[in-house]
């Protein structure tokens, strides 16, 4: 598993990776995917939908249960990953490269909104 560069993680297990130009990729961390087990269904929002930090923007279902996924920062959806809708198991295989969920354009002040997000190493430590 390779983790992304310029990536921050939320305590609710979303990652936010900086693509430059105020654009970001959002997905689920390897820890989240491992905890969920076999992922069988993913519901993503429509492109152009706007969400505030903390809003539920997607649902990921494992065999056992449905989990809500939250926006780590405020933003407008500019692209969704069709591949994970068709093959949800992609998240189990590679949550960082092929298994991202959405790309957004930030609509808020990212530096202040990302204050409660953690570097991957700190996030990992927090889990222990």
């Amino acid at each position, binding site marked *: 598993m390779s983790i992304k560069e310029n990536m921050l993680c939320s305590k609710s297990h979303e990652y936010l990776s900086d693509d430059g130009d105020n654009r970001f990729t959002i997905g689920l961390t390897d820890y989240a995917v491992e*905890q969920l*087990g*076999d992922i*069988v*269904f993913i*519901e993503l929002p429509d492109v152009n939908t706007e969400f505030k930090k903390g809003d539920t923007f997607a*649902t990921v*279902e*494992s*065999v*056992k*249960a*449905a989990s809500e996924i939250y926006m780590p920062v405020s933003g407008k959806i500019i692209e969704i990953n069709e591949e994970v809708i068709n093959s949800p198991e992609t998240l189990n295989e590679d949550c960082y490269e092929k298994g991202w969920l959405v790309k957004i354009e930030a609509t808020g002040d990212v530096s202040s909104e990302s204050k409660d997000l953690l570097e991957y190493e700190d996030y990992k430590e927090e889990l222990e």
Partner: protein
Amino acid sequence: MTKETFLHDKHIALGAKMVDFAGWEMPVQYTSIIEEHKTVRENVGLFDVSHMGEVFVSGKESVEFLNKIVPQDISKLNYEKAVYCQLTNKNGGLIDDLIIYKLGILEYLVICNASRIDEDLNWMVRNSKGFDVKIDNQSHNYSLLAVQGPKADELMRELGLSTHQESFTIKPDKIAGIRVLVSRTGYTGEDGYEILVENNYSEYLWDKILEEGQSFGIKPIGLGARDTLRLEAALHLYGNDLDENTTPVEAGLSWSIPKDKKEYYNGKEVIEEQLKNGGEKKLVGLKMLDKSIARHEYEVYYKGEKAGVVTSGAPSPILGANIALAYVKNNKEICTGTIVQVMIREKLHDAEIIKKPFIQKRNKIKL
């Protein structure tokens, strides 16, 4: 504090993900629920179900006592046979579902759900007043292992099973040299066995079964796959599909209730009336017509009106579709083939009512 079975360390060593279930720390999966599910359908799986309750009932009036607490006729239960039963309250509601085994003359074993042991015992003791009967909860002294799948019988023979056992029978035997009670029952829809063993021998037996089972493709199976397996077989889960406000008739269990039982049992008036006219609701099987998954407590709609509630739902690894059990109004219009809608995250999704069980059960095969 959560309780641990005697096999707890084995689960940890096998890398199981542990969860709290009915106050017990239990393995939910070892590798993958889907993979474990398929192992049981194709080969054989080993389950630790030691959290379940074992209550021994004996004494001069044990038949009369048992006949008062379940709709089934225990006087007709033969030696070394098992019967699926329900513990009903005065209104016919389900306190629990059980398997009762006849171990000897005036000696019975009641296996109950882990989540219901306290309620069951309380109810049994209250109902035993005036009966010459002994109720002995031995849940803390026994471990229960389940060996389930098309290769279970062959594996059990390798392990020393000495006699042929029909479905729904129980016999003392020696498995891997250990004295155990073996019953040909299960909760997967597959052929298989359940082995009751004294706690001290459970780790040894667990290892032996996994070792001998290697050539049969055995895998340890967690509660996650146990749930999807039982759902495909449309076997009820207490707390999801059964509760004190639901009768056996409403739960689709009329087949298990004798129509000619003379003795009174708790809830008899209600149940007999419902056997004739049906209950307020009925349990149906659903197949989602899109990729969405119906889950416990999601609402069911018919012709734009709320018509019921989903009690269990999950993907079926064998059918490749998402299935569910739901209670709907006891309305003739809502039947097999009817399209209903399930409310999922504020949107209605079509589902078809299909026949239960969702798969062909293989545990009734007579060899």
